[in-house]
């Protein structure tokens, strides 16, 4: 493995280090530095996968191919920019007295451990370890959601813990069943849980067991993706936790959970020789898009509204992977990338806007452009991007998903169009009112972090105008893996 191992070692060691450093003045800088190191290691890993193709390490316990390497890069990048954003953000929260010193220590240590668990889910080849890491990702974030110790945040964290705990238990049962099906071919022991081995014998896996297993896995990991009707925890956890956590939950954790589902979908569809898993994903994806769009228009809390928007977009991605085929999978991967970048950028601006106004209620946030032009325009551009207006990248991926849907499942296209229209009207109207008009906002004690916002939006814009050929190649190869 070599230097690339740092993608796991750095956040794990960083978490321990930050627990020791505690609330000292330079803790946010250390946190950012650890994330930068992680991103550097991810870049090395990407380079190596491009040069050598898929690689495995530690007796095949870790496995990286074109599908997960792009998610590793995305996760490392967004967690780096989020750590940069959280430097001023958490300092402002501290000086507003919303977080205690102990809270800052918890926040920094858990932030790194959370990144570690996500990267472990992405790089492990062992489906059992994948489950353990996914559960650990819930555990590291549950106390962060409750960081402010308010009534609402405690309630949100409790809901998050119970729902995801119940969900993830179903996923464990599914994993046991997959192991059971694999054991009959691969023999008992560790190899029967390695994804690469399962993938090579997938045609021989017992179809009945695999289909029951996939239903349990869909309920389990689907809870973490936020698929309707398992999405109840998501808006609360996003709205009540600190904003950097909302950004990484929305931008990264949901992707990572969906990644786990995709890995199982590949095996299940291979075993059944018909798109059983694909059909389930299509259905749940479509339901999520439709339900989220209508809930979205009724929200008053800005973070809740964008949380519903995340459910909508995760539904869209799930739908695309459910359709399958080179174009839809390509579009799904592209949408994963642009959604994660755009949504985290939006949460960065939302976080500072809420700090300036002293409220998360949208009627209390007014005139951002007048008070702080960069922040206001950042939010406006982010909203325009997430709504899928050209020339941003979200337009390209949504366009591809829609055209494939029209070709393959024509009945789904009107539902998608109406939902996208409803969410467009809701978000655009509300964001416009917040951005323009007479300002109600105050100055912040620290300079807000706006570079990450524009870095993200810049990349999304770039992906809408021109996708570099090596990236196209990369997505194509990953899409082939998904099938």
């Amino acid at each position, binding site marked *: 493995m070599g230097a690339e191992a740092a993608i796991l070692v750095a956040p794990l060691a960083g978490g321990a280090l930050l627990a020791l450093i505690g609330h000292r003045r330079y803790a946010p800088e250390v946190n950012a530095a650890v994330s930068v190191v992680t991103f550097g290691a991810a870049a090395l890993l990407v380079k190596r996968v491009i040069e050598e193709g898929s690689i495995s390490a530690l007796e095949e316990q870790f496995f990286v191919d074109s599908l997960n390497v792009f998610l590793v890069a995305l996760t490392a990048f967004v967690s780096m920019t989020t750590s940069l954003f959280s430097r001023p953000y958490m300092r402002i929260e501290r000086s507003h007295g919303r977080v205690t010193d102990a809270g800052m220590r918890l926040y920094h240590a858990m932030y790194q451990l959370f990144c570690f668990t996500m990267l472990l889910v992405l790089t492990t080849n062992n489906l059992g370890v994948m489950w353990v890491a996914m559960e650990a990702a819930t555990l590291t974030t549950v106390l962060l959601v409750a960081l402010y110790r308010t009534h*609402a945040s405690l*309630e949100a964290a409790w*809901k998050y813990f119970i729902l995801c705990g119940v969900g993830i238990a179903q996923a464990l049962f599914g994993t046991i069943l997959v192991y059971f099906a694999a054991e009959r071919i691969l023999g008992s022991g560790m190899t029967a849980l390695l994804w690469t081995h399962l993938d090579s014998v997938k045609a021989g896996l017992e179809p009945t067991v695999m289909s029951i297993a996939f239903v349990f896995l869909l309920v389990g990991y689907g809870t973490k993706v936020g698929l309707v009707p398992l999405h109840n925890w998501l808006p609360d956890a996003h709205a009540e936790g600190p904003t950097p956590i909302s950004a990484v939950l929305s931008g990264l954790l949901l992707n990572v959970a969906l990644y786990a589902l995709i890995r199982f979908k590949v095996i299940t569809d291979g075993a059944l020789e018909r798109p059983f898993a694909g059909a389930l994903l299509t259905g749940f994806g479509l339901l999520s898009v439709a339900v989220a769009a209508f809930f979205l228009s009724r929200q008053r809390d800005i973070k809740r509204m964008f949380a519903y928007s995340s459910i909508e977009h995760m539904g869209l991605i799930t739908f695309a992977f459910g359709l399958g085929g080179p174009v839809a999978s390509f579009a799904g991967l592209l949408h994963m990338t642009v959604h994660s970048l755009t949504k985290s950028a939006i949460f960065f601006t939302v976080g500072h806007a809420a700090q300036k106004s002293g409220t998360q209620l949208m009627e209390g946030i007014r005139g951002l452009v007048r008070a702080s032009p960069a922040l206001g325009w950042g939010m406006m551009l982010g909203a325009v991007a997430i709504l899928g207006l050209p020339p941003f990248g979200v337009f390209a991926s949504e366009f591809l998903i829609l055209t494939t849907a029209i070709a393959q499942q024509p009945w789904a296209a009107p539902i998608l169009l109406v939902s996208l229209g409803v969410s467009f009207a809701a978000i655009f109207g509300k964001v416009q009112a917040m951005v323009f008009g007479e300002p109600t906002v105050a100055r912040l004690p620290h300079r807000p972090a706006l570079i990450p916002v524009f870095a993200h939006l810049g990349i999304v814009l770039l992906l809408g105008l021109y996708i570099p050929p090596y990236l196209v190649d990369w997505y194509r190869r990953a899409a082939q893996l998904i099938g």
Partner: protein
Amino acid sequence: MLAHYGPQLVNLLAAVLLLLAFAMLSQRRILSLINLFAFQGFILFMATVVVAMITGQTHLYWSAAVTLLLKVFLLPWILHRLIRRLNVKWDVETLVNIPTLMIFGLVLVILAFNLAAPISLLAGTVTRSTLGIALASLLLSFLMMITRSKAVPQVVAFLAMENSLFFAATATVYGMPMVVELGIALDVLVASLILGVFLFQIRSRFDSVDTRHLERLREQ
């Protein structure tokens, strides 16, 4: 001798597990609930040891040892301390309509057996007939979780759910590989510690650990 009586013994223990799941579902006193949970852990430990003896799978002895340590001693001890410190030791929960709950539980058991039947047929393990019971107690713990309104019983339900999953793994595949099982045990331990911290936060905020206080976040 063991080859003959062993599988029957496992079946017996599995039946006790199912009974315990029903007992936990209807138990109103928090203290008794924790004792039932510890007893469930002990039955699980016995079942794992018996399966290990029948099959000669040495790694099962290790997971039995982990079960004994974690689920019979450590977790019940943590829970006992927790209810003493939270001062809810003698709390009695008002459960509405236990007979209806029981009938609903019975329906879940039938459902679980039906779902498990095709899988059990394929299993080559001596313990395959117990998969239905494992799934049934998983669903019963799930039912318990959604019918309780106090935080500690919800935590116990969460842990009971994990116990059922462990039993399912033992019954169908003679346990998961060791690394995975240790990982799961670690997760469960960390989860219960975090929940403990969390319960204190809830208590200091609301002066009670009744999760009915936690129903304010709703869609308007």
